């Protein structure tokens, strides 16, 4: 059973304790200056954005079919059975295809480092595998970020929308986007206003399928194309051999020309 996070922006109070807990958990610096940064970066995996009296959290969506894991040439990303999409820094060669491929632009880079790493929320995999909540969910004073089984959280989100249809837009962002994500978002406003890509834009097709459709042909393409090329080679050179043999034959017979 895959674990997930449900973020309900209508009960978020913008206290940014999740930011701080995340920084502590990942041993990142956190002070007033970092708290004031309104964007994610290599030292800020999650951010609480403010627009008027509305809040919105951003973090890695932990896709059910992660693009980052499928594009990485060395398999530095993988999705654990618990749900988190984790990163193995030792494998990484720094091609940054994960950053280019992610529909949510979540992976960030240590541009100033000489041995740079890709940085993003990894959903506290050690805590999750030990049966604990993520640091952000544990600290959240209002329960705006809730940790649990994905199926339970989906049901709960649907209940909340049903009970308070005037508070919520009738949509759970992340339920079907790019084939479903392990971060689900409930809101009374459009998440797109806070920089999330529009559902219509990213679609419901799991990202790996776009390249998978081509990649799955490669194993068949190699033998077939080799045979075709070999055949062309054989035919075009055979013609030459035949011509040479015929010429010799003619010479032997005294030649006609």
């Amino acid at each position, binding site marked *: 059973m895959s674990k997930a996070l449900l973020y309900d922006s209508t009960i978020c109070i913008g206290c940014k304790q999740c930011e701080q807990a995340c920084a502590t958990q990942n041993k990142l610096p956190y002070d007033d200056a970092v708290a004031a940064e309104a964007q994610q*970066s*290599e030292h800020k995996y999650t951010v609480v954005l403010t627009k008027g009296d509305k809040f919105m959290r951003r973090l890695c969506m932990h896709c059910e079919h992660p*693009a980052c894991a*499928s*594009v*990485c*040439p*060395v*398999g*530095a990303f993988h999705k654990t059975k618990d749900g988190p999409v984790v990163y193995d820094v030792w*494998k*990484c*060669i*720094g*091609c*940054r*295809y994960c*950053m*280019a*491929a992610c*529909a949510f*632009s979540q*992976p*960030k*880079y240590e*541009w*100033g*480092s*000489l*041995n*740079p790493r890709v940085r993003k929320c990894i959903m506290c995999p050690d805590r999750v595998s030990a049966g604990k909540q993520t640091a952000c969910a544990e600290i959240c004073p209002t329960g705006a970020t809730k940790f649990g089984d994905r199926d339970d959280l989906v049901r709960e989100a649907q209940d909340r929308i049903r009970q308070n249809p005037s508070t919520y837009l009738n949509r759970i962002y992340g339920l079907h986007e790019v084939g479903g994500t392990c971060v689900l978002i409930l809101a009374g406003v459009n998440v797109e206003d806070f920089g999330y*890509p529009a559902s219509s*834009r*990213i*679609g419901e097709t799991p*990202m*790996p399928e*776009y*390249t*998978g*459709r*081509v*990649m799955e042909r*490669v194993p068949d*393409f*190699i033998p077939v*194309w*080799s045979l075709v*090329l*070999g055949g*062309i*080679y054989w035919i*075009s*050179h055979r*013609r*030459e051999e035949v011509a040479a043999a015929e010429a010799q034959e003619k010479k032997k017979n005294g030649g006609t020309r």
Partner: protein
Amino acid sequence: MKIKLTFWRAVFLAIMACGLYSTYVRYIHGLGAATNMTDQFPWGFWIGFDCLCGVMLAAGGFCMVGAVYLFNVQSLHSVVRPAVLTAFLGYLLFIVGLLFDLGRPWFIWHQLIYMNPHSVMFEVGMCVMTYTTVLFFEFLPNVFERLNLKTPIKWIHKIYPVLIVAGILLSTLHQSSLGSLYLIMPSKLHPFWYSPALPFFFFGSAVAVGLAMTIFESTQSAKALGRQLELSVLVRLGGALLVALWVNALLRFEDYFHRGMLREITKPSYEAYFLWLELALSFVIPITLLSFKRIRLSPNGLYLASVLSLFGFITNRLNVSLIGFETYVGHHYLPKWTEFSVTLMIIALGFFMFAIAVKYLPIFPREEHAVEAVTTPARVITAGVPIPEHAGD
């Protein structure tokens, strides 16, 4: 041997000095200091030009090997060696470029042990690696001939059919896969350039570029080495180029037609200007030029059409990799001077190595002018060559 400082040598030295300084910045202060790449623009000029254009411009190798050895078109024999040399140098320099762009180049070998067969990048990496090896073997006879080693040449000739088939197979795979890289970014890449047919476009344009590049490089080498230009060869290549350009243009048209973009691409917009530039340079002008028999039969006309189409396809690659992302990201990306200077250095290295190879190896068939050619110093090669569409990179 006394080396005189000429204008082009001075330019070469200046490029190398700037390039070395940029190399220092890149490896001492990191990618952030040396480039204008950001989290929103993780792939910059080094991917767009050094990698995408570099591999594309090296396509002449597999095109000419395919024409001469696979289809047995003997009349093109004289251009195979320079084309293979260009391709070999091109791929070597592509790898050099990659070492600049990768964040952790010292782990590039991880590709061999942590394989992810679902990754397009993995496929490209493996193909480029094996193809560079194939090119090395296709290039080796030059060296053996020079050293008068008969036996190894015989060995290579024995495995030649395998090398040829493998080389073309690998080229088909990775030239198209460079386009497949972008298939996973449908929400980011502008619809002018995002298409499910990207791998076909990339392969098709590589073939056209292979032909154009061979015309360009034959003309340049002839000029630089004072050799006789083989017009019949160029005319054949020009005819093939015209066909290749038509096929590419029709593919692009079909794609826009089926995706209902035809009206969209005629409306002026930031992206449209770049698209028009690309289409004009790669298709409209060269096809128009080559349609006139007088131009198709003149060395200057062929040269002009080829160079224009090369610029057109370079524009295409830069559009796919850079311009096409600007609307999504919301701001422009302009490479830092250090990015340009590293690329220039790599290009200059390509010219230099090409000149050295031509000087010491039997790349071009012998003729009366050969004696003269050998004594011609390396600098002549660089003379009068517009830098961006260089042979090796």
